[in-house]
């Protein structure tokens, strides 16, 4: 089942390269702050498409119409994620705060225990936040649904906690592998070119190296980054539909 999710999501994200480039352009302007929310809103649309459909390989990518709507959705997504993220952060700060009043050995032990607890809580909070977003998307964007902890917990129970965490680990691995492999291949190609350029002159070689880095950066910005973003959103949205 999990493998089908990955397969569908990988194919889905590769459907339209224009969308990827467009997302890359938005990403390029994200220092202006507003585009960050547009990207979050677009990923939310992908989730929304996924939770309302099934694995079928025919869903089209969401469009870029109605930017205002996309922006507001993005703000919602960011608020939900921050709200869930605050929990582990505060937990860790409490541990750190108590630790300052203890002597050396106890403090170290407490911080280690605290970090472990924070890690577990953080993973749970992340899972809940993603499922919360899916739940919100499923209920046509009703904001409070993202914080219906009991409903979200029931959904995760139905899917299975182990399956959820396994899917997430898979997502992390796939994301890491794709981004590394792509940049390694491009890097390798340009390294070969660069050394062949050395036959002519040192300047040519260094020029080729710099050009290679530029190409690498551009491809990861315009193609790989958006691709992985859509891939992750689609996978999580499909995971939500796995409840029986």
């Amino acid at each position, binding site marked *: 089942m999990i493998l089908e999710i990955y397969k569908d999501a990988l194919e889905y994200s590769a459907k339209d390269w224009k969308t990827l480039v467009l997302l890359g352009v938005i990403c390029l302007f994200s220092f*202006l*702050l507003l585009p960050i929310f547009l990207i979050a809103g677009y990923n939310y649309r992908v989730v929304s498409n996924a939770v309302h459909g099934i694995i079928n390989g025919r869903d089209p990518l969401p469009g870029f119409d109605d930017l*205002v*709507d996309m922006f*507001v959705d993005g*703000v*919602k997504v960011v608020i939900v994620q921050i709200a869930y993220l605050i929990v582990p952060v505060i937990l860790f700060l409490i541990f750190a705060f108590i630790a300052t009043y203890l002597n050396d050995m106890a403090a170290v032990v407490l911080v280690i225990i605290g970090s472990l607890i924070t890690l577990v809580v953080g993973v749970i909070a992340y899972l809940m936040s993603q499922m919360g977003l899916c739940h919100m998307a499923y209920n046509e*964007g*009703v*904001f409070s649904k993202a914080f219906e902890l009991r409903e979200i917990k029931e959904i995760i129970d139905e899917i299975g906690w182990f399956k959820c965490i396994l899917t997430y680990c898979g997502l992390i691995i796939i994301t890491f592998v794709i981004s590394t492999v792509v940049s390694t291949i491009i890097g390798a190609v340009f390294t070969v070119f660069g050394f062949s350029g050395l036959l002519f002159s040192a300047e040519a070689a260094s020029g080729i190296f710099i050009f290679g880095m530029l190409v690498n950066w551009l491809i990861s910005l315009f193609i790989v980054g958006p691709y992985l973003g859509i891939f992750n959103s689609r996978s999580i949205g499909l995971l939500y539909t796995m409840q029986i």
Partner: protein
Amino acid sequence: MASITDCVVEGLKYPFNDIKKLLGLGVLFALISALSTFISTQSFEVSTITMNFVENANGTVSQMASSQLPTGNIYLIIGLSVLSFIVSLFILGYQYDIVKFAIDKKPELPGFNDVIDLFVKGIKYFIVVVAYNVIPMIVLFAGMVFGGDVSVMMVFILISVVLFIIAYFLLVMAINNMVAHDSIKKAFDFKEITDNIANFGWGKYVGIIIFTVIVYVIIMVAVSFVLSFITVALSIAIPNQIIAISIVAIIEGLFIDSYASIFFNRVCGSIYRESIK
């Protein structure tokens, strides 16, 4: 409506329905920006003159004879402040109309035809805003005057901040209530106001207002970021700093402040419309 945040989406799109009127309001905002820039340059001049006096005569400001004060500048400041206050009353009157249109769910923007009417509405709006902020203001001043100790003062300030926030949440509904019934008494009908909010749901009500404020802040931060770029570019291009700053202030008033205020009041009106369902 599937989600209450749809009100925010609708509010964000609403000002684009009639760009001319948006710019009409923008002119008023631009006027205020220009006036306040001018006022601050004038008051800077006054303080420079005063500082010169203090340094040259080795006296204090209270020893200055009134003839030594730059009276011309001071009268100018007072006159301009009164002028900008009057302009802001018109803006408030226009906001009143926007809330009205939102409650009636009209898709177009209100016009500027009846100037006197706008002015009267602006005064009403202003009175309600002041009335709701009186109590927290009194607490704040009491803290400043009687709270000799720093910690006591902090407590007073904290209480007044909480009161300000509570007053603000009531104020939004109070203005809606006033506009809906077109009577200033209704702005102080606390039973009806709290009933309306309870009907809407307190959590939902507070949530949507905070959400709207967050969207507002994000837009403002993003815009001011862009505007600061423009300011830097202009101040390189134009040798006179004041002109560069005024140009940016006018741009902000013309497009951004007017847009933001229309957006915010539209959402507030929509909240009322949803709450009386």
